[in-house]
């Protein structure tokens, strides 16, 4: 493999933002036709690095060469003209435009729409990624959206394809299809820069790996010859311990702490997914994990449980009380709390201080108001207790929520709910975008609360996380929930089948073709 010529070489790149050095003296090289992994935790500087290659961000120092010549793209346009294409993690599709229009926007000189539509069809079939060019992107599943991005790149015959965390939105079957496509591309001579923190994927797909930690290259590896553990330790820089689980305790009583029966609500979100007939129960001390690809109703489920969408009588019962008609504050009052996925803007108000954000949900159970007047000193104490208990790194409780890093804010938001001694707690994506140490702390805190007798629902797209902390496991698929099954004894194939749902048919169809 190493005899192939070097396509792109990155030499001593440094990029600093105020208060943080995103990349410090980073060097690596990608050979033609190679699948090269850029491995690192959230915040390790992977995204900034590829944005520099794609011309979105300019490095402070250092240089890049392309086939031996100088390469310093001033804009994505230049990068695309050179032969670099990029599939983004999020934020690069337009929901209200159709597939062909979305593709055209990512091209320099797109052909007329009719021809473009024909080419999209042809290329998408060639690579086993069927797509209808006239469909509105907002109506597509996450996997299909990614196809749009990939096709957009492929139509420009790239020499280097950058993929930023491509599998986080895919079912296991869809991952297989994607890998087949990527291997085909690699065989045709296209180099692929593959960014991920998922080790198994990298081991099965990539030829070489560069590992980043806190903006620096900490090593290179041949992923096929390394174990996942070796890679993980290079990436995190420490030995990780899995969360501890106290022995399960019988809390007695037949009553479920949270009972959801035939829950059906319409989605309030444009291009959202309505919930249909969702049924599950969670007992005291039990953790239910709900998996599923993004956009299958996770947000709607949280809204319906939090009370932001009301539901019919008897559809949701918490601690034996029917809460369908209650708003979020009334639900908190009976001990039913939740933490949404989007911490900045939903779970917390970005421009408000941590004290105000502590009051945001803590006001009810912590008794922080009297006759409608807020007891700010008590709210400050509560905020400081959260900061202390959950090790939130912040200069103080007076700072705005937006000033905290993702992991710290997440610890604050989850901690705020756990500190209220809830009987039932629902958390959507507890560790999304959080570094490994913070993620481990959050998982441990959730398990500790469950051990104290709370019923816990964790909605997540991270299968490994769910298998680690959940007792029972279910999958959301296009607004429907599979029957929960015990985690013990569940195989990855069974999970794949549960996640497949409607997508499964498509994959099967593809495999035949």
């Amino acid at each position, binding site marked *: 493999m190493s005899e192939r010529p070097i396509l792109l070489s990155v030499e001593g790149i440094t990029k600093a933002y105020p208060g943080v050095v995103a990349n410090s003296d980073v060097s690596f090289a990608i050979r033609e036709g190679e699948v090269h992994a850029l491995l690192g935790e959230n915040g390790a500087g992977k995204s900034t690095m590829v944005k520099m290659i794609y011309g979105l961000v300019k490095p402070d120092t250092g240089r890049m060469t392309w086939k031996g010549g100088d390469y310093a793209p001033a804009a994505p346009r230049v990068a695309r003209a050179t032969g670099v294409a990029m599939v983004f993690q999020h934020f690069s599709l337009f929901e209200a435009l159709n597939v062909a229009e979305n593709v055209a926007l990512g091209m320099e000189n797109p052909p007329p729409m009719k021809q473009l539509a024909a080419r999209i069809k042809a290329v998408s079939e060639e690579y086993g990624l069927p797509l209808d060019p006239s469909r509105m992107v907002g109506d597509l599943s996450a996997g299909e959206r990614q196809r749009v991005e990939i096709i957009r790149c492929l139509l420009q015959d790239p020499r280097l394809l950058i993929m930023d965390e491509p599998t986080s939105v895919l079912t296991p079957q869809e991952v297989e299809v994607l890998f087949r496509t990527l291997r085909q591309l690699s065989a045709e001579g296209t180099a692929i820069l593959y960014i991920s923190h998922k080790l198994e994927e990298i081991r099965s797909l990539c030829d070489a790996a560069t590992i980043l930690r806190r903006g620096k290259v900490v090593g290179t590896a041949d992923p096929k010859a390394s174990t996942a553990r070796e890679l993980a330790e290079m990436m995190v820089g420490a030995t990780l311990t899995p969360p501890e689980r106290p022995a399960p305790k019988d809390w007695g009583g037949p009553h479920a702490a949270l009972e959801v029966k035939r829950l059906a609500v319409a989605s309030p979100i444009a291009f959202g997914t309505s919930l249909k007939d969702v049924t599950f129960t969670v007992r005291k001390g039990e953790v239910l994990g709900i998996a599923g690809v993004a956009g299958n109703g996770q947000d709607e489920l949280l809204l319906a449980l939090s009370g932001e969408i009301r539901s019919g009588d008897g559809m949701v019962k918490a601690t034996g009380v029917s809460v369908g008609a209650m708003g*979020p504050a009334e639900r908190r009052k009976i001990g039913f709390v939740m933490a949404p996925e989007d911490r900045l*803007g939903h779970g917390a*108000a970005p421009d408000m201080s941590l004290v105000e954000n502590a009051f945001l949900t803590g*006001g009810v159970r912590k008794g922080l108001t009297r006759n409608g007047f807020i007891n700010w000193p008590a709210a400050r104490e509560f905020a400081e207790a959260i900061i202390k208990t959950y090790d939130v790194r912040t200069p103080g409780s007076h700072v705005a929520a937006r000033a905290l890093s993702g992991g710290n804010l997440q610890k604050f938001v989850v901690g705020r709910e756990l500190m209220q001694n809830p009987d039932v707690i629902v958390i959507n994506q507890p560790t999304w975008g959080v570094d490994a140490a913070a993620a481990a702390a959050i998982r441990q805190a959730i398990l500790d609360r469950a051990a104290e007798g709370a019923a816990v629902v964790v909605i997540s797209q991270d299968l490994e996380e769910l298998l680690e902390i959940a007792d029972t496991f279910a999958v959301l698929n296009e607004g429907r929930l599979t029957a929960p099954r015990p985690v013990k004894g569940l195989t990855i194939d069974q999970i794949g089948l549960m996640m497949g749902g409607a997508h499964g048919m498509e994959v099967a169809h593809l495999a035949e073709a």
Partner: protein
Amino acid sequence: MLRLEKRPNPSKLWLYGTPVMAVILTMIVGGMLFATMGKDPFEVIRTIFWDPLFGEFAFYLRGQLLVKAGPLILIAIGLALGFRAGIWNIGAEGQYIMGAICGAAVGLAVYPTESRWIYPAMVIAGAFGGWAWAMIPAILKTRFHTNEILVSLMLVYVAQTILAKASTGFLKNPEGMGFPGSRNFSSYPAAANPELIAGSGIHWGVVTALAVAGVAWVLLSRHIIGFQIRLSGQAPRAARFHGVNPSKLVVLCMGLSGALAGLAGLFEVTGPAGQITIDFNVGYGFTAIIVAFLGRLNPIGIVFAGVLMALTYVGGEMASTNLGLPSATIQVFQGMLLFFLLGVDVLTNYRIRTFMGGK
């Protein structure tokens, strides 16, 4: 090259510094404007900002200041509550007119009865008139998601037509010898809003405005409703997560701002204006928008901003009579003030950095 960079925390210094900076910039650019019109900029600025407070006729003009500031503050506080929540009532002028008409109608209906209950009843009717007029956009917004900006504004034009009808029709003074306009309240003591301390300009509207400013400040900083208002404006999804019912908040904020605008109209028509005429309203409902922003949507700030804006009115009139400055100039001046304020506001949330070219 200059570049904006988001501050992790809003700057406290600039939060208070920007209004001052905006006033200074407006004086500088306004001065240039006056100079191009052939006036001595220093003299004009002095006439507008200094003379009403400390000049020869200050004893009279200071009173005028409060007369003008009262309604501006009252309306602006109501608007600010809504603006803070992201609810854009810009039809205060219409609510002001309707409040005046409703309140005046109650008084005129019982003319010439004398009773101490008449004025309080008129005040309630005035607040109700403004409230009811603001409820139209509020209910259309909560029921049909209709844009409150456009509806409340359209209703200003409708209110103006009703005002025309009132002054020439149903509220016309039967003893007015055919001239348009209602009876003058200054000759009907039970329904009048007189100056409380001679020469001070203080009437019930001014007293109410200051009281409302205090209450609104406590509401915003200490009460959960104030918290919900601020939260809804800054992070609407977080507000729903907290448990705010957006529809109720719209009804509350629109209703409050409408009622306050209606009150301002009632105090004005029974006091300084004296009667319902086709043009008794002089655009306070629109100027109050500037006052609200100039006061940083903070009730205490609004009190200062209201006085400052009143200064430009009173001083502007002086400049117009003494120096021959066209009266429209002052409107331009006020608009400019708002522009500068909105412009320099960027400093509160962003830092300006210079960086070298070529990178």
